[in-house]
């Protein structure tokens, strides 16, 4: 979609442009393009090709344009696909509900200790993802430090458990991806001009009114970016379901891992990856449309 605003800018640039550096912008973008071509386009082409091949590992895979693999994997694994999107959405919602207040507090109330709190937020990243997830197994053990005393006091029934349930998996996803939500929201809130808030106060807006009608709308691009950064990796995650999950919490990431590494069924793994990619894109664009954001990436980059 063409954007018709900012007509003043081209005039300025046109006047300043000299004949020499016409190529300069392209040269500046070149590393980015090369990076994309080498590490995204090429692998994606290879994977698309792989998803349309048939054969087996020992005798080799041949290009047969076997589109049927796509239908097969969707038919076999639609439950896990839908579950992945639902878990991803649930974890993203939880991240937003927990992360927004945190970002708000750091942006407006943390004062000169802002950087300390941002550092604390990033601190868990210095420990391996798998180790952190595994440690939830200890924390949430059936008779562990959290549930044990509650059961002892009779607050919870003796056979109550969190591990091996969908709640454990969604909780694990929320925990692992929370910083990806907090940071963009924080950046958006940080950019809210104090004068705007002051103006709202001058115009007799209550504190709640200021938040709902001024601060929240101005921070929505940050929330949008946060949703992108949490929803996509959370839906594709395979660590949490593997470590914290039970008999029916398998996510599509686990299936892809099994198909690729255990079964060496590369076409099925590749096809499933693209189905997941398609489902994620569809979900993200639907969300953008519902939110009234015309240009998804523009909003995310703002």
């Amino acid at each position: 979609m063409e954007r018709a605003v900012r007509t003043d800018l081209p005039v300025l640039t046109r006047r300043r442009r000299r004949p020499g550096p016409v190529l300069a912008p392209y040269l500046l973008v070149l590393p980015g393009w090369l990076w994309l071509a080498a590490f995204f386009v090429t692998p994606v082409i290879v994977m698309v090709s792989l998803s349309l091949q048939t054969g087996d590992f020992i005798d080799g895979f041949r290009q047969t344009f076997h589109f049927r693999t796509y239908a097969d994997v969707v038919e076999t694994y639609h439950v896990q696909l839908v579950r992945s999107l639902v878990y991803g959405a649930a974890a993203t919602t939880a991240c937003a509900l927990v992360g927004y207040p945190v970002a708000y507090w750091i942006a407006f109330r943390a004062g000169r200790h802002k950087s300390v709190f941002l550092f604390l937020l990033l601190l868990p990243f210095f420990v391996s993802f798998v180790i952190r997830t595994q440690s939830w197994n200890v924390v949430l053990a059936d008779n562990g430090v959290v549930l044990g005393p509650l059961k002892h006091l009779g607050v919870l029934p003796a056979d109550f458990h969190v591990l091996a349930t969908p709640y454990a998996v969604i909780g694990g996803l929320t925990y692992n991806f929370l910083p990806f939500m907090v940071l963009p929201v924080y950046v958006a809130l940080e950019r809210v001009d104090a004068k705007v808030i002051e103006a709202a106060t001058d115009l007799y807006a209550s504190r709640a009114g200021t938040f709902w009608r001024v601060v929240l709308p101005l921070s929505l691009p940050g929330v949008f970016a946060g949703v992108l950064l949490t929803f996509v990796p959370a839906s594709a995650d395979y660590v949490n379901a593997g470590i914290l999950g039970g008999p029916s919490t398998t996510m599509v990431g686990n299936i892809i891992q099994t198909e690729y590494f255990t079964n060496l069924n590369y076409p099925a793994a590749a096809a499933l990856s693209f189905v997941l990619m398609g489902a994620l894109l569809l979900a993200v664009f639907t969300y953008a449309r519902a939110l009234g954001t015309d240009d998804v990436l523009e909003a995310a980059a703002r």
Partner: protein
Amino acid sequence: MPHQPTPSAPWLRGLTEPRCSRRGLLRAALGAAALAPLAACSVPGARKPVPHTSAQIAAAVDGFWTGREKRGRLSFANYTQYIDTDPGDQSRHPTMDAFTRETGIRISYDEVIDDSASWFGKIQPEFASGQGIGYDLMVVGGDSYLSKYIELGYLAPLDHSRLPHFAERGGAAFKNTSFDPGNVYTVPWQSGMTGIGYDPAKVGRKITSWQDLLDPKLHGKVGMWNDAVQMGNIALLAVGVDPETSTHADWRKAAAWLRGQRDAGLVRSYSTSTYQSSLQRGDLYASLVYSGDVFQANQSGSHLEFVIPDEGGLLWTDNLCIPSTAAHPVDALTYMDYVYRPEVAARISETVQFVCPVPDAQPVIARDAAAATGKRRHLLGSLSTSPLVFPTKADQSKLRHLRVLDETEEKQWNALFEPIYQS
């Protein structure tokens, strides 16, 4: 563009109107260009002729070993915590140091293998391009990956004339296995049993059979694995079939048994990575376990029991093998034979605590126990008499081997057993 009258015939309109913009054409061309390489792509197969008759094998052995000499170096890839360590310094491995002193062969030892699948994925491209993988010796489980290594010609056929200790001291149960008849490519490194581990205090009775894992009292407290090979094989035992001679119909019966167990809500989780700690914490009351896990858990204060169920348990083997691309194969073969000396096997067992493939190591451990003091004396004493490390005759008669699957069978097998834990 000068104005042109619209032609009346509809088909002519298509010729005069700019239906295809330049940008559109460019896009279409780019799209086609992106699809074109797809047709050329493929992943080549790499099946190599595998020698079968003894004459073929002898020729292959000759072909590989003729002209190879000792180089004084070797590199060894292993799983983590799978060799003896000096109690005072975890980075030292006394049996390897002794090997270097005796033979002058230096060993660089790396614990780089996590599991069969990821290790295969890591080294396969190097094999496929004919490069060395940087290791002269590696540990491979006796599963479908071993068959893949063999069929792809990635392993060196072993020269048994240079393995006298293996011939003399290797336990009969560990020789001539179904996954490598005649030990053409592998010799066992460590072995282990798959059975049931449980906490008698929690279960409240003795577990003796696979059917006990269907007991409604264990609702939501049973641990199973996300491993189609082990799950399928134990389920075959549970329905009373010897895995090695099982048929496709038996597999379906076994899968139904596992599905029944899952659908009854007995299974809490399917995981090979968390069952051990879950069992120790009491989140699981009973689980599929490896024998060595229970021995180690009990050393750190648990009171778990390991049983080989009446219908039978599984005996699996991790094996030493030499990549066909190894740079120092003679040195690797020398080390392979060295670990079959009873004293060396005993030292390794004292740390690793799995099933030892050298029965003569038992009296050595007993002797070490008598010479040791305090806690170590107790540990070695229980180790030398433990049926988990040296299975009794009665236990051995209950142990079965994993079903060896060919490529087609493996697909059918996975299609039956994977959906059970990937639900």
